[in-house]
């Protein structure tokens, strides 16, 4: 039986592994694999957690109170909840440096998507123009992944931007505020579409609206933000569990892969990995190697491998990430109502904004505020806290935020390289990102347009509250080892096989030649399954 070694247990790694196992390969996975604590009181709702636990603050704020966002210490509206902090735990061997890019790495079992917001947005033909395949080639894999992880959504006004694939479950129950926004959109659809180029519809999420195997449908417990206690929200560790039930799957947890080594023929022979317990570096022999540790992790491993092999420090060009804006809004029609704790907590609606060309599409996610902690919001009001609490009580159900995503393109001045230093044990990853020309103007125009749209929906944006997230914050990294039909160095083929190392495949976002304005996780999974189907 042919053996394939996969590095990384994120969405790309596990869906590659699952597809390869189904084709009869033996799969070994090398992974750091930090694991979460078991879920606390899985049957309790959000409010029952507050009333039922002996130490609710320990759960919601962390035992070291690290979940409290103190004034002056936090630029973002929200941080990572303590129950998901394991997904941000780092390893000592990865050092990075950048003056304009804030990278996020995860070494969790399941990768960064263990803390995702479950958005599943397939790329369409226009967004796949730079890819060496079209939507039709990817559609079977979208459907396969959807059938495996469970995605809800429907064919609505966003279908022109979000292709409708097989395997969609019916949408989740809408919360009252989202339903109100959708009704207002329905009454102004023509104006919004024709004058403002705005299309509103249901979000697509990897959340079960009906039972699937052992996983139960969403119970609307309101605990999404702290990690779904019943696995109704999909995370890649579920697919890893599925792989581990196969006799042909071997999981080497507790290892951080630093580089691979090659023979004289250029074939990858082994992967070198640091054990987390501090023992000797271990060499894993390799027949076929698949890098799936996220675009940045894969790039670091690739650069370090080349450096150790040849002494050359290469520069990978074309780093991409979605610029994101957060646009908070207030809906006066919801003032004085009780917010709904018993609802799905992440975005339930999406807004598609048309651009001059299909690639210019802007994707927005609309989240109405429910069980998220209140103190970071109250602190930002230009009021004393007592008045702020009074205001919050009355407008809590009326608040929401639009997360605006912009596309990105590969550009030569966005780079990754190594600083090997003198005598350093492990080279430092150096990132440099230069925003595209005209970005500021594009952001201004989009904010103006979005404000008009929100007014049409009966909402307004409080002055001074629009927040441009720093580069790196969207965590949709891509483009550093892109697919290329021509066999150029530091690129991969349409099947994601390296043009430099014949038995090396890259199954994550590093191979994406264009980054649409969408969450890429679903496409990462589908493309990884496609690569597994191509492998020989």
């Amino acid at each position, binding site marked *: 039986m042919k053996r394939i070694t996969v590095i990384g247990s994120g969405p790309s790694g596990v869906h590659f592994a699952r597809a390869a196992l189904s084709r009869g390969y033996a799969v070994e996975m090398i992974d750091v694999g930090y694991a979460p604590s078991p879920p606390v009181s899985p049957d309790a709702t959000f409010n029952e957690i507050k009333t039922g636990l002996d130490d609710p*603050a320990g759960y919601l704020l962390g035992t070291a*109170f690290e979940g409290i966002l*103190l*004034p002056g210490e936090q630029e973002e509206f929200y941080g990572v909840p303590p129950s998901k902090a394991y997904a941000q735990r780092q390893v000592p061997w990865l050092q990075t440096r950048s003056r304009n890019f804030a990278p996020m790495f995860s070494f969790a079992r399941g990768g960064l998507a263990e803390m995702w917001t479950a958005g599943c947005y397939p790329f369409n033909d226009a967004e796949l123009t730079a890819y060496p395949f079209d939507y039709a080639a990817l559609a079977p894999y979208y459907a396969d992944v959807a059938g495996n992880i469970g995605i809800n959504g429907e064919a609505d006004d966003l279908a022109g931007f979000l292709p409708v694939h097989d395997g969609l479950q019916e949408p989740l129950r809408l919360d009252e505020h989202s339903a109100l926004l959708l009704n207002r959109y329905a009454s102004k659809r023509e104006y919004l579409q024709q004058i403002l180029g705005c299309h509103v519809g249901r979000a697509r999420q990897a959340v079960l609206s009906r039972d699937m195997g052992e996983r139960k449908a969403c119970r609307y417990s309101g605990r999404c933000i702290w990690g779904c206690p019943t696995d109704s929200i999909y995370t890649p560790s579920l697919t890893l569990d599925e792989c581990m039930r196969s006799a042909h799957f071997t999981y080497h947890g507790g290892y951080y892969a630093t580089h691979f080594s090659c023979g004289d023929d250029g074939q990858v022979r082994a992967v070198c990995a640091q054990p987390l317990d501090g023992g000797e570096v271990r060499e894993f022999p390799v027949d076929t190697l698949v890098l799936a540790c996220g675009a940045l992790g894969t790039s670091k491993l690739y650069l370090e491998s080349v450096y150790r092999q040849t002494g050359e420090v290469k520069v990978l060009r074309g780093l991409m990430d979605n610029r994101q804006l957060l646009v908070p809004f207030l809906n006066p029609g919801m003032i004085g109502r*009780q917010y709904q704790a018993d609802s799905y907590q992440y975005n339930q609606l999406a807004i598609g904004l048309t651009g001059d060309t299909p690639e210019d599409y802007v994707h927005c996610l609309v989240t109405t505020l429910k069980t998220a902690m209140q103190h970071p919001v109250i602190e930002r009001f230009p009021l004393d*806290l007592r008045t702020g*609490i*009074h205001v919050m*009580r009355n407008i809590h159900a009326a608040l929401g935020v639009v997360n605006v995503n912009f596309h990105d393109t590969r550009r030569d001045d966005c780079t990754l390289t190594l600083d090997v230093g003198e005598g350093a044990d492990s080279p430092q990853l150096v990132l440099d990102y230069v925003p595209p020309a005209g970005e500021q103007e594009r952001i201004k125009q989009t904010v103006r347009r979005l404000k008009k749209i929100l007014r049409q929906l009966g909402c307004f944006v409080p002055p001074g509250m629009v927040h441009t997230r720093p580069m790196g914050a969207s965590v949709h990294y891509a483009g550093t080892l892109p697919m290329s039909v021509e066999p150029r160095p530091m690129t991969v083929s349409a099947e994601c096989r390296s043009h430099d190392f014949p038995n090396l495949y890259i199954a994550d976002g590093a191979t994406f030649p264009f980054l649409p304005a969408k969450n890429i996780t679903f496409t990462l999974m589908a493309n990884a399954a496609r690569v597994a189907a191509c492998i020989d």
Partner: protein
Amino acid sequence: MTERAELLTECRIFSRYLVDTDPGNYVCDSYVAAVRQLRESLSPTSSFDRLLLRLARLHPLITRSVDVYARFFAPASSIRRRLITLLAIIESDGTMLDRLERPDQAGLPGFIGGMLWRSLLLVVLLSIAMLILLPVQLVTGRPARGRPQA
């Protein structure tokens, strides 16, 4: 007075200011634990910062005046940080749910009316606090921690 007793008094006064009620044992114990755990972030960093905290501990009404002043002129001061810490603990405690989450029954007009009154009060308190505290802040220097006001 021991540090714990001092923090418990502080917690009671701040709780009365924030939500009009004395805190339960759980909130008190959590607050003491949080201030100890986050000592570096919650301790005053200048003499003016220390003064704000001392004044705020005297009475809930003074806490309010100091808070409204700090919101605009010392937003990351120790007093603001401690109040936010207590607020975060209170919102985690199920026994306080109603005080933080139940909307008034007055509807939108009632909310707007209430806000007009509260805004007027805020302006008055801010003006008084500015008269007293601004000259002191200008003389003693700004708190070390700060960020642009909203």
